[in-house]
């Protein structure tokens, strides 16, 4: 109760209400199915027994949370239920959400994960990920956001491999009104990024957003290529890239963990962008990744519009997921 109250208070009557509404809207499909399932579950079982936990396990697994995370969570829940001697399923509901939230939050209290941008000097953000997750689109959206904040942004078309990728970024550049540094298709991505850094420097840009070609994480050569791109940036600007964002598709299953691990090994991923959360995919992978790899989620993609990219706010995210349940709890 106290926990939900705190959450609720955080969002009612202050300027963040709009944000949480956006989350509620974008995540409505997720939330509806998820919390209605938990409610179904609670209604279905009077007693907290093995069957109850088995069904709960299924709900979580169907949200792509990941088998091992779910197993750990269920074990913890069982212990908690025993400790508090909970027999009534309606009471266990709160324990479930608290435990889930605990995984989201982890140890750190900072719930809003802002981009690590340098004040007054050039910041470089490198975007990496497998094919088709939405890297280029995300860059367009991030560029728009930064421009709205009054920053001077330059884009580097580092995906020289996929047909039409450079043109795609150029269209975004035009839409948003920022410069795009590019070479011909098929050229060395490291060279493009190098020129991007030079150009951004000479134009006194605030932020350089670097696109890269999508690559499956088990392609060793391509992963080495990515490390090289990162080294080129490091060499030009000590301390850069200031962010390496791994773009993940929310519909991806357990392989997202493998992606996060392998991309981290080659490029020291600093944050995650979770795209396509506006479908029916549950995005439970966020739980697993935060839990197992401690990589924070910085943005989530809630739609195709340029404004549909939201800063990831764990409080708001959880609030969106559990909104129905929170409302119930207020009574």
């Amino acid at each position, binding site marked *: 109760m106290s926990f939900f109250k705190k959450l609720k208070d955080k969002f009612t009557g202050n300027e963040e209400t709009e944000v949480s509404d956006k989350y509620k809207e974008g995540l409505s499909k997720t939330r509806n199915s998820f919390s209605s399932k938990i409610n179904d579950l609670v209604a279905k079982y009077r007693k907290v027994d093995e069957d109850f936990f088995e069904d709960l396990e299924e709900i979580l697994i*169907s949200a792509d949370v990941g088998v091992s995370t779910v197993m750990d969570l269920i074990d913890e829940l069982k212990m908690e239920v025993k400790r508090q001697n909970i027999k009534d399923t309606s009471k266990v509901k709160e324990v479930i959400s608290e435990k889930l939230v605990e995984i989201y939050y982890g140890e750190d209290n900072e719930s809003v994960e802002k981009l690590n941008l340098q004040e007054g000097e050039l910041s470089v953000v490198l975007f990496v990920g497998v094919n088709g997750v939405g890297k280029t689109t995300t860059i367009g959206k991030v560029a728009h956001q930064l421009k709205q904040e009054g920053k001077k942004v330059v884009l580097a078309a580092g995906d020289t491999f996929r*047909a039409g990728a450079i*043109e795609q970024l*150029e269209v975004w550049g035009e839409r948003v009104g920022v410069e795009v540094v590019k070479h011909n298709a098929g050229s060395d991505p490291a060279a493009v990024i190098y020129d991007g850094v030079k150009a951004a420097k000479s134009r006194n840009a605030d932020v350089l957003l670097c696109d890269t070609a999508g690559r499956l994480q088990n392609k060793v050569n391509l992963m080495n290529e990515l490390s090289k791109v990162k080294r080129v940036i490091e060499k030009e600007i000590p301390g850069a890239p200031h962010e390496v964002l791994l773009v993940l598709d929310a*519909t991806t*299953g*357990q392989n997202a963990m*493998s992606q996060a*691990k392998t991309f981290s090994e080659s490029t020291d991923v600093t944050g995650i962008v979770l795209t396509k959360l506006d479908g*029916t995919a549950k995005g439970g992978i966020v739980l697993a990744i935060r839990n197992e790899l401690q990589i924070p989620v910085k943005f989530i993609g809630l739609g195709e519009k340029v404004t549909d990219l939201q800063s990831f706010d764990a409080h708001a995210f959880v609030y969106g997921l559990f909104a129905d349940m929170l409302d119930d709890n207020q009574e």
Partner: protein
Amino acid sequence: MAFEGLADRLQSTIQKIKGKGKVTEQDVKEMTREVRLALLEADVNFKVVKDFVKRVKERAVGQEVMESLTPGQQVIKVVKEELTSLMGGEQSKIAVADRSPTVIMMVGLQGAGKTTTTGKLANLLRKKYNRKPLLVAADIYRPAAIKQLETLGSQLGMPVFSLGTEVSPVEIANKAIEQAKAEHNDYVIIDTAGRLHVDTDLMDELQQIKTNVNPNEIFLVVDAMTGQDAVNVAESFNEQLDISGVVLTKLDGDTRGGAALSIKAVTDKPIKFAGMGEKLDELEAFHPERMASRILGMGDVLSLIEKAQDNVDEKKAKELEQKMRSASFTFDDFLEQMGQVKNMGPLEDLIGMLPGANKMKGLKNVQFDEKQISHVEAIIQSMTKKERQDPSLMNASRKKRIAKGSGRSVSEVNRLLKQFEDMKKMMKQMTNMQGGKKGKKGKGLNFPFM
């Protein structure tokens, strides 16, 4: 590998029930739990898993342990059979219309790989069937999607039909077919925009295209890495468009690809092709068998069990077993076994399948690099008959001769000799572990290789 395969998962349970002549209900329950976890970790939808496990359980309960198999393998076999029947047979045929052109529609979520697959499919049609496809750029929404298809078209030297981004996809599709008729293109592949299955407007658009062009094939393109949501996606696309087949992309990654099973289970439509790389010729016929093994995380091992059972002469296997126990296994036997095994698939997988094998120390030194097999063969073939029977004869000059004869280095010859000894030791351990004495429920390893 990030996840445990079924073989690893079943390990502890198998240890427990080893020596039992019969698998009890409790044993089956434990094993099916492991099957369930393995499938879930492979991203098979939990509902599909539930039904599946139920069937496996029904079949496995009370089944006698087959003479030549351990109970664990028996369960794996049941799982494999069920998986294979669920996945269906290989179906990579593409429809041909009575009257040209044949129309194919590509549909799917954003980023699944529709445009790339369109290019690959066109390439396949020309290469394998000698067809003349026309590619149609009907994705008017994503920036530069048309450009992407045009680039692919020019790489392939194939015509691409586009009307820019201001014309509706329905009209583009209609006009494209007119052009195909005029230009005598016998296939028309329509690349549609990626869309969410819950986006009613865009799904309506697809239905309109469908009604207008009356396609002979509608391929749903799905990313092999898709998680639990694959069921929802496949179900809604199928319900709204009645798809004719599925193309699974990015299968060259390291995902288990459980989505394949989920999609097949909910749509009952064949998965026809698999995208195996970024190049335009990397579209292959989909092999349900291989996929079944992959989902379980066992390489092609499952089919090895069957092949081994089918192909190997029982009597020879018995002889070998005897040899193993008495440690009189020679290089000749080794060579013969290698010949048989080579046709069956990766050796390491074979070893990995043996119950307890991955926990044995001896195996660490026995490395089976696929590329080296032919080298090994060459080395053994360069030995005299006597040497093959009795490796203890080896001395420096013999080794030198063998190295010369096989074109390998002396150190490689040495390594092989060492490995051979290690293997013999391992076999001894293995037979001891298995109880060793004959007549004990016939649990001897009947592997051709062993």
